[in-house]
């Protein structure tokens, strides 16, 4: 549709590889045989009805949830129970949550420098420089010394994005980053995300903002009942979906 939908430069470098991933909550089979490859610079939007397992899928990618069967490889590291491995992966995968989850007892700046300093063992000065850089990137450098409680929802979510970026992740995961925001704030967050996409960040994004999906996604994945039902480039996905579930879903969600 526009220049954002071009295939990324090095299409062959796999960043995420899910092979036959299954997951159960107790007896409940949430993820069924998920197969998904994401190459570097790809921007993927996950959508689907509530409870279809979108969150679970991306939470499996940084081991906030454990999968029980199948293989997940992130940037060449396989996710096992090895704590070292998990730590490495987590520091390379940034995640942004629906409810921001900023640390309320730390200032915006401290939120951003915490992980670089303690995980990357970065000097404080340097961590702060990088943090300010990213805060400028999300256009709130002037809030650096406030506490999260003093910011609006949109501002908080942008801080959350900056916080994740400060770890210089290779992949960013977003779990409905705008759904807890008032309508007037959604745009500022989406703009920030579009900016990120333009810089070539590999992104996996659970969202129902179809406008956003059209603008930035290389691929839209539709999930239902724990399975990937359809995946396609957004033009195809929105104009001419193959699957009847997808059509139904789209008809409900668009207008």
């Amino acid at each position: 549709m526009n220049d954002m939908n071009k295939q990324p430069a090095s299409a062959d470098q796999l960043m995420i590889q899910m092979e036959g991933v299954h997951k159960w909550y107790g007896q409940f089979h949430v993820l069924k045989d998920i197969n998904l490859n994401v190459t570097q610079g790809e921007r993927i939007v996950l959508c689907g009805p509530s409870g279809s397992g979108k969150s679970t899928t991306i939470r499996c990618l940084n081991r906030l949830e454990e999968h029980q069967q199948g293989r997940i490889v992130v940037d060449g590291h396989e996710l096992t129970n090895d704590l070292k491995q998990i730590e490495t992966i987590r520091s390379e995968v940034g995640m942004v949550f629906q409810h921001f989850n900023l640390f309320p007892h730390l200032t915006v700046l401290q939120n951003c420098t915490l992980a670089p300093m303690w995980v990357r063992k970065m000097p404080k000065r340097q961590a702060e420089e990088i943090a300010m850089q990213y805060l400028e990137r999300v256009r709130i450098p002037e809030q650096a010394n406030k506490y999260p409680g003093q910011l609006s929802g949109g501002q908080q979510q942008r801080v959350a994005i900056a916080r994740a970026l400060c770890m210089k992740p290779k992949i960013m995961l977003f779990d409905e980053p705008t759904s807890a925001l008032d309508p007037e704030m959604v745009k500022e967050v989406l703009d920030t995300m579009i900016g990120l996409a333009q810089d070539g960040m590999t992104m996996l994004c659970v969202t129902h903002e179809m406008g956003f999906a059209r603008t930035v996604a290389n691929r839209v994945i539709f999930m239902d009942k724990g399975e990937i039902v359809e995946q396609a480039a957004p033009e195809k996905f929105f104009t001419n979906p193959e699957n009847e579930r997808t059509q139904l879903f789209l008809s409900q969600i668009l207008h």
Partner: protein
Amino acid sequence: MTTHIFKPDLPAPSRNVGVVGWMRSNLFSSWFNTLMTLAGLYLVWLIIPPLLNWAFIQADWTGDARSDCSREGACWVFIQSRFAQFMYGFYPADLRWRVDLAAVLAVVGAVPLFLKKTPHKARFGIGYLIAYPLIAYWLLHGGFLGMQTVSTSQWGGLMLTIIIAAVGIAGALPLGILLALGRRSEMPAIRVICVTFIEFWRGVPLITVLFMSSVMLPLFLPEGMNLDKLMRAMVMIIFFEAAYIAEVVRGGLQAIPKGQYEAAAAMGLGYWRSMMLVILPQALKLVIPGIVNTFIALFKDTSLVIIIGLFDFLNSIKRATADPAWLGMSTEGYVFAAFVYWIFCFGMSRYSMHLEHKLDRGHKR
């Protein structure tokens, strides 16, 4: 156009569900947890079997003297033979039916208050709260309407403990509410008086207060003025607990939005009427769990009257353990006391949790 065929749900891998899965995730999820489980099991094994052995298997239940006990396990014979004293103290044996009757009346009278569908619940409740103390006093103490007097010095045991706690809460509640209102008053002098009162009572240990009441009080009164020792202890306990209740109630008052005060005022209700009709009913309902918790604390605190020589439940047990005929029964005595206190307090705390739960639901309505 295709129709997606959903894959069937598969059963979870057996190591993730069922007993095995449960144990894996709840007992052995990591090496540290496995270690903790083993340590926990060892602890249980260390405590439970000897305890069961002592309290039940090897225990002696029948007999009437110390010699009937093998001393391998607990000697419950001791409790059994002193049971009446633990319950009634030195209340004359032939008049104990009066205590029983008072207790039965208390329970029977209170039941309708806890049932959902009692008609005129509020009116019945107020009537009960006024009438019962009179009846109970008549039954327990007597001295009028043809009832033989049993002086308070003969009261004792669990009966006394319960009486102190009940009178304590009945007195502390209204006083505590007044103090809470006073503490939030706009009149600085009233506020200062209430704050001082509350902070004083919350700052000193109950036993010093009880000691004062038991031996020093007449020093402050004109000569010849005489108050019953039990009554003085109760007054002190009421003051003491009222300070705590006041803080609980204050929390409730603070939780009532300002709009409620304004709406009441705008309707022309004065201070007392808006308090009685609008604010307090809401505030008190909010803090019922807090009040029950205060009552539990009060119930436990009654054991301190031992320090001033009142024959409450704990004291009657302590005295019994000093009886030469039953020497060496401390453990049995204290375990029994602990059990009884525990039953009461645990029961009440469950009730308070239940209320909290119910209130939570009420708010979400």
